[in-house]
């Protein structure tokens, strides 16, 4: 049984600190080239197929911008 996950990022609240990227065990997320209205490179799923929905990124996020979904397939 495999786990598939996905995250939704509140891009306007994200400050692009990158702590979530450093703590992602599957190399799913990265900072985007685009910026939000405050000039921060927000986080996004660069490799969405890798995500297992482990919630590590959301747990360490200082601004609580990440929502995590997970399914068993």
């Amino acid at each position, binding site marked *: 049984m495999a786990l*598939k996950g996905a995250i939704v990022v509140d891009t*306007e609240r994200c*400050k692009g*600190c990158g*702590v979530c990227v450093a703590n992602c065990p599957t190399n799913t997320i990265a900072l985007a080239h685009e910026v939000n209205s405050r000039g921060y490179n927000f986080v996004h799923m660069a490799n969405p197929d890798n995500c297992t929905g482990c919630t*590590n990124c959301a*747990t360490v996020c200082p601004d609580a911008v990440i929502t*995590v979904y997970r*399914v068993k*397939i």
Partner: protein
Amino acid sequence: MDINEIIKPENLVYKKTPILKDNILHYCPGCSHGVVHKIIAEVIEEMNIQEKTIGVSPVGCSVFAYNYLDIDWQQAAHGRAPALATAIKRLMPEKYVFTYQGDGDLASIGTAEIMHACNRGENIVVIFINNAIYGMTGGQMAPTTLLGQVTATTPYGRKAELNGYPLKITELIAQLEGTCYVTRQSVQNPASVRKAKKAIRKAFENSQMHKGTSFVEIVGTCNSGWKIPPVQANKWMEENMFPFYPLGDMKDR
């Protein structure tokens, strides 16, 4: 599998607790304050004590904590949060009362208040954020600044003969009879965040069992004050802060 098939309410595993308001935190990117606010909010939600919790915010970056957690707050004079929390808890013993203080607030100007509140064994929770610097005022030396650490007021590094030694306030507080739970935690990776959350939950539970003061130190980062980017700041903290401020429970009874 398409992402839109995963993103459905029934598959939700983690979302921001409603106790944390939607205001954008004024803290710098990567600041530990945000994580600690979040785990306090999650503990309050899990214990279902939103209506019964009163926080006391300090002077420092976290002075605006009342903008972010949807509970009752009071804001104390610099360092005086334990005195204010004492009054609140004695007048309303059924409430969960906690102070949220930084190292400039608790370990410097507020040393007298925290020592005596802990020694009296007030049934409050003290959350102490130690980032070894005065963050809000521009990165000056704090009592907790490490030897050799460069700050705005110690540009060549802290020297013991000139500036004295860093203060391990949590170890001092563990000696006091009035405290029941004294611990040092951190929030730089998922495992440490979960441990810190458990410690904060235990502290809140203790405060209602009238066992004495619960003191939770969180070793945190100040990226702007340290002048290190967030991810490297977490590494710097692990390499330099943890040897001097070792994590773990100092007292639990």
